[in-house]
């Protein structure tokens, strides 16, 4: 299976700010996480993360993040403009 690297911004809503999401992600999926930047306050968490692993596993990990309410964007953030 092809290995892939995804560079992503994760944005946590307020209710998830205190949850150890990256730890949970590592437990649930066969992916390597590499934290590159983060800003967290009581209202929002912004985490820049590199994910290494099989392409399908990365896709599953992203789907899980979205399912629990984390917004997942590419590092470019908005590739769609007006």
């Amino acid at each position, binding site marked *: 299976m092809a290995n892939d690297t995804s560079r992503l911004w994760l*944005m946590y809503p307020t209710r998830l700010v205190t949850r150890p999401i990256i730890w949970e992600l590592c437990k649930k999926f066969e992916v390597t996480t590499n934290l*590159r930047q983060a800003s967290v306050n009581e209202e929002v968490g912004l985490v820049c993360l590199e994910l290494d692993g099989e392409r399908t596993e990365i896709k599953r990990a992203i789907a899980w993040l979205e399912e629990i309410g984390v917004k997942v964007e590419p590092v*470019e*953030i908005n590739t769609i403009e*007006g």
Partner: protein
Amino acid sequence: MQKNTPSYFSNLKCRECGRLYPKQAIHVCDFDFGPLEAAYDYDAIKAALSREVIESRPKSMWRYRELLPIDGEPTVGTQVGFTPLVKADRLAAKLGIKALYIKNDTVNYPTLSFKDRVVSVALSRAKELGFKTVACASTGNLANSVAANAASAGLKSYVLIPADLEQGKVLGSLVYGTNVIGIHGAYDQVNRLCSEIAGKYGWGFVNVNLRPYYAEGSKSMGFEIMEQLGWRIPRHTVAPMASGSLLTKIHKAYGEFTKIGLVEDAKFSIYGAQATGCAPISHAMKKGTDIVKPVPKPDTIAKSLAIGTPADGYYAIHVMRQTGGTAEDVSDDEVIEGIKLLAEYAGIFAETAGGVTVACAKKLIEAGKIPRDEEAVLCITGHGLKTQEAIQGKCGTPRLIKPSLREFEEQIYLPDQAATAAKS
């Protein structure tokens, strides 16, 4: 313009850590994922560029070529820019400010929005880098501009759009013979797909892998404002914010002209305008934080500004704070009022983003944040013909009469009105 102008564009540089990168189709720092931006040899530019040299060149954005990130001569969009800076005295009186200028990119060539500036640079650089296919993901202005400029340059182009985009907006891209691809899915998924396509295929995605070049094009709006004001920086500038990029690039432009001695160092303030239905930067600014909280579902008629996760929000906040400016946001009703004010008092028909800028300026003046006894420049970025549906039914209707003078006098222009008009 002189042939074979040397290039002063030296590197790409990470905005976070300052690491230097080669001038390729890359856009993110490998170390901290910070955005890359163009760096220049300002000492050499200072020695080579003067007001006289610029004034001797054709009236386009490329008269500031030394401060734009290409190696050779521009090959795409050579006639873009140098739009009018209109002194809008009637609108100034209406808003209660001493002097007001409109930087009027509603008449930018060829697609009537400021996006022609950024696309012109991105595609000129794409050709230098050897790209044969260019692409973008857009809901309007950017798509139109990529399609038109790629067509004139002979580049193959792809325009990616959300599948449910209104057909009217698609037409302005289809007409240029581009490949329009509708994508089913939520905004975040479309974003990730575009990023993957840009990474996997050898396409020049104007706002992904060509982003450092694309973004620099916005500086030309700032350069023109200073030249058209008589080589000086305006005291107050109001710009619309989608990603926040335009505002940061106007700031960079003011700084560059100062650095190379084309204008005197002067105090200036920059203000950002958003629609309340999607105002993540304005809300963060007002809360006093630089962490921009995403807006999951933007809800505003100002669709060209409706970016819920603004890439340059953090940097825009720092520019506003550093220059003593601030951010403001307005409701959709105020946006329409802004469009009408600009049309009725300055004769300029702007799209919804223009309405946002005018309405925010009005609020800033009323609140005393922009002092009434000073001057302001408003950056108006796109033509009203692009968003006609926003004001449909909001400007009244024509009054209908039969072709008879009696009916005209009875219903439209009463004889006593005519008599009053004749006396005055």
